[in-house]
């Protein structure tokens, strides 16, 4: 292999500017965290609601939730990025559309968060539904029997248990969202993958660049995993057998 190694590259200045390559990577890491974490909050909220609706007795609500899940699950994330970025503004009234295209602050970031958040919400919703349906029906009846309304039963009885049950699959979704945030490069968010490509072209030190970026993604996955394990441990219900590692 004929490759010229240069581990000092990170401290060198970029070709057209004052910053170093390390600055680029730090910026990238920051945007990756920002996109992934904001989108995760959105995915949890939307996914929780949609997943609950999927188990609702009202046919119409359940159908709406099913459509939501199928729509976001069956189109590639990258295509969804382009839809939100290029197509959706065209669907809006002219003034709003113009404002989005010209004046909206952090347009790429907002689009990426919206897209990734909704994409992940469909997957979270599926987990929530599975969690709710895994609970014995007696739980629902017991809730109703002490006089809760159905929403109250969900709020106080079913969802607290369902969310605990689905922590393991949610953990892998949480780890996925960091990985999936890389797709935001395609609409120009300056996250890690975008910076990796840029630094690779600019410095021509591809291996060092990719190694550094890969390590940063590793760190995200590892911290996400440990964080969820901590939450799982803290929220464990005594006497309830949950498999955990």
């Amino acid at each position: 292999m004929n490759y010229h190694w240069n581990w000092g590259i990170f401290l060198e200045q970029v070709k057209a500017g004052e910053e170093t390559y390390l600055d680029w990577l730090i910026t990238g890491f920051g945007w990756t965290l920002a996109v992934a974490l904001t989108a995760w909050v959105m995915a949890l909220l939307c996914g929780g609601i949609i997943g609950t609706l999927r188990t609702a007795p009202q046919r119409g609500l359940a159908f709406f939730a099913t459509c939501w899940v199928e729509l976001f699950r069956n189109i590639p994330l990258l295509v969804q990025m382009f839809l939100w970025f290029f197509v959706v503004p065209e669907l809006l009234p002219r003034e709003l559309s113009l404002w989005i295209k010209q004046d909206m602050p952090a347009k790429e970031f907002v689009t990426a968060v919206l897209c990734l958040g909704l994409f992940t919400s469909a997957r979270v919703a599926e987990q929530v539904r599975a969690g709710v349906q895994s609970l014995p029906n007696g739980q629902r009846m017991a809730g109703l029997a002490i006089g809760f309304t159905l929403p109250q039963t969900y709020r106080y009885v079913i969802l607290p248990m369902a969310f605990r049950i689905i922590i393991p699959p949610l953990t892998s979704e949480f780890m996925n969202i960091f990985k999936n945030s890389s797709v935001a490069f395609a609409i120009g968010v300056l996250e890690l993958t975008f910076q990796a490509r840029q630094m690779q072209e600019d410095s021509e030190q591809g291996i060092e660049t990719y190694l550094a970026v890969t390590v940063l993604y590793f760190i995200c996955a590892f911290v996400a995993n440990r964080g969820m394990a901590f939450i799982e441990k803290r929220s464990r219900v005594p006497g309830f057998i949950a498999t955990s590692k």
Partner: protein
Amino acid sequence: MSFFAQFDLSVIGPSLPFIWTGLLFTVKLTVIAMTGGIILGTLLALARLSPITPLAMAATWYVNLMRSIPLLMVILWFFLIIPLLTGKPMGAENSAIITFTLFEAAYYSEIMRAGIQSVPRGQVWAGQAIGMTYAQTMGHIILPQAFRNMLPVLLTQTIILFQDTSLVYAIGAKDLLKAAEIAGKNYNRPVEMYVFVAFVYFVICFALSRLVKHLQSRIAIIR
């Protein structure tokens, strides 16, 4: 609403042959990566479950490594590193085929591992008790059952793979998405093309996921 007045579907017709070649590549990439990935993945799963510790460790490492890096980074890695190793440039299409096969193998191997472990231990004993070797027990008894039990999950993974192939965009391989994008630029109608390509992806993936549901209920009956 200005949009619908401007929405011009007539550009789709003439660009269909071009988009079709892109779709063909997407399908080809999916089928090769699925076949190669399942074969490699099964070998990886067997390695992970084998009593030979170094082999099991190596397989575990490979699988965990692939699963913790974004696919996009893996695509970029291979595109960078294959020419360095072979000494000659490689086209984006071929690079994509190699990348997806090796990457998907990690995911398929986790499915096959779960499948193998879902077969009761007694089945291994029963195979061995009539004198079968390890290879015979695996080949005739365990793997067919593992494969059958996991068929819906393997197919679901393949649907994800089909969607993920759109990421070859990053290295410029001409798949369904890229073809539609080029057509959109040629006719200066990117919006219509993005909507059209999303529709095509949706129809294919939705149909496949219905098929998986159907299969799942049939397998449930057989059990």
